[in-house]
C-alpha cells in the first residue's frame, strides 16, 4: 500500500518542486558561467579553476553559488594579472618575438596618415567633442574673439559671436554693440530672436528692424514674438508659453495680419551666411562644431502668427462665400496665396520656400472653385494647374534631403565609425607608447628583458602599429566627407545642399557625444565610454579572429 499524502503536503511538494526548478535553472546558469571561467583561465594554472568549479555542487543556496562565482571571476582576474606580471612565468621559457623593421615601417606609415588633413582634423574634432566642458570652453573662446573684435572696431565679428554664443544675455548685449558700431548690421536683430525675445535688452528690436527695412514681413514677425515675451515675461516663449492665450491676443494676430500684407519677405539668411563665411575664413577655423552648428538655424523666422491669421482669414473667406459675398471671399484667399508666392519667390532657404508653397496651396484651394463658379475658366484652370504643380510630393514642390530616416541613420553610422576609430587610434598609440618606453628600457637594462611586461611590450610593438594604421585610415575615410563639407561651405557658392550637408556632417561628429550625454551614462566622461567600446570591439574581434585561426589550423591538420 502506498501512503496517501494529505493535500497540504502535496501542495507543499509542488511549491518545493517549483523552487527546485528555479534553483536548478539558476544553478545551471552559474555552472555554465563557471565553465566559461575555466576556459578563460591561463592554461598553466587551470587546475585551480577546476578546483573551484568542483566545489559548486557543495553550495546550499543560489546566493552561495553566486558568491562562489563572483570569487571565481575575481580569482580569474588575479590569475591573468599574475600571468602578465610574474617574471617566473612558465611562458618565459618560450622565445619571445621582438618587433622588427616591418613594425617600425607600419608605425611610420600610420603617423604619415596624420599628414592627411581629414585624418588630422578628424582626430582633433572628435577628441575636442569629448571634452565634457567644451561648450563652456567654446563660449569662452567666442567671447574672447568678440572682445578683441570690439577693441579693433570689427562690428562683423562682434555680430558673428552675437549670433552664435549660447549665453543669451551675452548674445543680446553683443547684438546691440554690433548694431551701434555698424547700423547696416541691424538685420542681425532678427536672427535667433525666438530665443532672445524675453531678454530685457532685446525689447524694441522690432521697431529698429521696421525702421531700417520698411515693408519686410520679418519685422512684424519679430514684433509678434515680442508680444509673446510680454505676455509671459518669466517664461521661454517658444517652449513654455500657453498657446491659446497667445493665439487669442488681438495685437499678436494683428502683427500676423501686417506680416501677411507686407510686400516683401527677407529672412536675411544669405546675409548671415555671407557674414558667417567671411568671419570664419578670417578666423581660419575648420572645427565642424564651430563651422557647422549654425548653418541650418540661419534665417530661421517663425511664421506662426501668419499661419494663425491666414487660417482665420480663410475660414472667413469660406463663410463669406457661403453667404454669397464672393468678392470678400476671393480677396481674402488672394491675400494668403499672394503671401505664399512672395515667400516662395523671396525665401532664401528651403524652409521658407516650402512654407510659401503651403500658404499658396491653402489660398488657391479656396480661390479656385470661386473663380470656376464665376465662369472665369482661364484663371480657374491656371490656378488648378498651379495647385497640381505644388501638391505634396510633386516634383516642383521641393523636398528635404535632410532629416529623412536613411539620412539620419547614415549620419549616426558615420558618427559611430568616426568616434570608434579615433578611440582605437588613441588606444593603440597609448599602448604603443608604453610598450616603446619599456622596450627602450630593455635596450639599456637587463632587468627589463624578461617577465610579462617585456613579453606584452614585444607583442604590442609588433601588432599595435597595424591597428593604429587601420584606425587612422578609417578615421581619415569617415571624416573625409565632413572635411569636404567644411571646405565647400567656406569656399564655394552657397546652396541649400551645402548647408544641409554641413549640418548633417556636424551632427555626425556631435551625435555620439550628445547621445552619451543625454543618456543615463552622463556622469562618466565620454572618452571613458569610447575607450570601453573600443576595448569591447577589440576583444570581440580578437575572439572571432582566434576562433577562425583555430578552425583553419584544425582543417589544415585534418
Amino acid at each position, binding site marked *: 500500500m502506498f501512503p496517501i499524502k494529505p493535500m497540504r503536503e502535496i501542495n507543499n511538494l509542488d511549491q518545493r518542486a517549483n523552487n527546485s526548478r528555479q534553483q536548478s535553472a539558476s544553478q545551471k546558469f552559474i555552472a555554465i558561467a563557471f565553465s566559461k571561467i575555466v576556459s578563460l583561465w591561463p592554461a598553466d594554472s587551470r*587546475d*585551480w579553476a*577546476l578546483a573551484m568549479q568542483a566545489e559548486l555542487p557543495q553550495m546550499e543556496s543560489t546566493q552561495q553559488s553566486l*558568491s562562489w562565482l563572483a570569487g571565481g571571476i575575481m580569482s580569474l582576474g588575479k590569475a591573468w594579472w599574475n600571468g602578465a606580471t610574474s617574471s617566473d612565468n612558465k611562458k618565459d621559457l618560450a622565445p619571445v618575438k621582438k618587433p622588427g623593421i616591418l613594425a617600425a615601417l607600419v608605425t611610420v606609415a600610420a603617423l604619415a596618415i596624420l599628414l592627411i588633413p581629414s585624418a588630422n582634423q578628424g582626430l582633433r574634432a572628435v577628441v575636442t567633442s569629448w571634452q565634457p566642458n567644451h561648450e563652456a570652453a567654446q563660449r569662452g573662446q567666442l567671447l574672447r574673439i568678440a572682445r578683441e573684435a570690439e577693441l579693433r572696431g570689427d562690428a562683423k565679428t562682434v555680430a558673428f559671436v552675437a549670433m552664435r554664443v549660447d549665453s543669451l544675455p551675452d548674445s543680446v548685449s553683443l547684438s546691440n554693440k554690433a548694431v551701434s558700431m555698424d547700423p547696416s548690421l541691424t538685420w542681425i536683430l532678427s536672427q535667433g530672436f525666438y530665443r532672445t525675445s524675453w531678454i530685457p535688452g532685446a525689447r524694441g528690436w522690432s521697431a529698429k528692424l521696421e525702421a531700417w527695412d520698411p515693408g519686410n514681413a520679418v519685422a512684424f514677425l519679430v514684433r509678434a514674438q515680442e508680444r509673446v515675451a510680454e505676455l509671459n515675461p518669466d517664461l521661454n516663449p517658444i517652449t513654455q508659453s500657453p498657446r491659446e492665450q497667445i493665439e487669442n491676443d488681438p495685437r499678436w494676430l494683428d502683427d500676423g495680419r501686417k506680416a501677411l500684407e507686407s510686400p516683401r519677405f527677407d529672412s536675411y539668411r544669405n546675409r548671415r551666411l555671407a557674414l558667417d563665411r567671411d568671419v570664419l575664413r578670417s578666423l581660419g577655423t575648420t572645427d565642424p562644431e564651430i563651422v557647422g552648428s549654425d548653418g541650418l538655424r540661419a534665417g530661421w523666422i517663425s511664421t506662426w502668427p501668419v499661419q494663425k491669421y491666414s487660417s482665420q482669414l480663410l475660414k472667413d473667406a469660406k463663410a463669406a462665400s457661403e453667404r454669397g459675398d464672393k468678392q470678400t471671399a476671393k480677396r481674402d484667399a488672394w491675400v494668403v496665396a499672394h503671401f505664399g508666392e512672395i515667400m516662395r519667390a523671396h525665401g532664401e532657404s528651403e524652409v521658407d520656400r516650402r512654407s510659401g508653397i503651403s500658404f499658396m496651396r491653402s489660398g488657391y484651394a479656396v480661390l479656385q472653385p470661386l473663380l470656376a463658379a464665376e465662369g472665369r475658366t482661364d484663371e480657374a484652370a491656371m490656378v488648378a494647374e498651379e495647385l497640381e504643380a505644388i501638391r505634396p510630393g510633386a516634383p516642383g514642390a521641393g523636398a528635404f534631403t535632410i532629416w529623412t530616416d536613411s539620412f539620419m541613420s547614415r549620419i549616426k553610422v558615420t558618427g559611430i565609425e568616426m568616434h570608434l576609430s579615433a578611440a582605437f587610434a588613441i588606444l593603440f598609440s597609448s599602448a604603443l607608447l608604453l610598450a616603446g618606453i619599456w622596450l627602450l628600457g630593455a635596450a639599456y637594462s637587463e632587468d627589463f628583458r624578461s*617577465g610579462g611586461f617585456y613579453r606584452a611590450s614585444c607583442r604590442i610593438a609588433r601588432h599595435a602599429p597595424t591597428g593604429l594604421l587601420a584606425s587612422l585610415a578609417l578615421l581619415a575615410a569617415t571624416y573625409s566627407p565632413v572635411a569636404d563639407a567644411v571646405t565647400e561651405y567656406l569656399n564655394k557658392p552657397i546652396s541649400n545642399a551645402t548647408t544641409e550637408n554641413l549640418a548633417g556632417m556636424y551632427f555626425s561628429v556631435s551625435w555620439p557625444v550628445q547621445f552619451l550625454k543625454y543618456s543615463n551614462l552622463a556622469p562618466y566622461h565620454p572618452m571613458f565610454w569610447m575607450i570601453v567600446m573600443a576595448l569591447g570591439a577589440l576583444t570581440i574581434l580578437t575572439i572571432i579572429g582566434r576562433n577562425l585561426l583555430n578552425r583553419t589550423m584544425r582543417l589544415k591538420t585534418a
Partner: protein
Amino acid sequence: MATRFGTSEQMHSSKQMRTSKQTLALLNALVAKPTQWHYGYALSRETELMSGTLYPILMRLEERGWLETQWETSEALPEDRAGRPPRHMYRLTAGGRAWATEALAAARGASKSKSARATLKPARQHTRILLGDPELERA
C-alpha cells in the same frame, strides 16, 4: 631558470609571502588539523574568506611549496557523492607547517604587544580571535 630577480629556486627561498590577516586565518585552519585533507568550500566557511580571496592565497602557498594538493579519486568517493566531480584537497607540507607555526606565533606576539597599547580595530580583533589570543579569551 634565470629571471631578472635571479633563479626560480632563489626566488622561492628569498621571496617572503605576505602574512595578511586572511593568510593567517587560513593557516590557522590548516594547522589545526595538519594531517587531514581540507576542501576549498569547507575552508571558506571555516575562515569566512570569500572564494576570490581564499583561492589566490592557496595558489601562492602551493607555488611556494608550503601546500600539498591532491584530487580525490573517484573510487574513494563516499556513496552519497557518487556521480559528483572529484574535489581538490589541501594540506600543509612539513615545511609549510613549520613556516605556518612560526608565522602564527609571530602574529600572536605582535598582537600581544599591541594590545597593551591600543584598542584593537575590529579586523585585527577578528584575527586575534582566530589565533586564539588568550587575552581576548579572558576578556
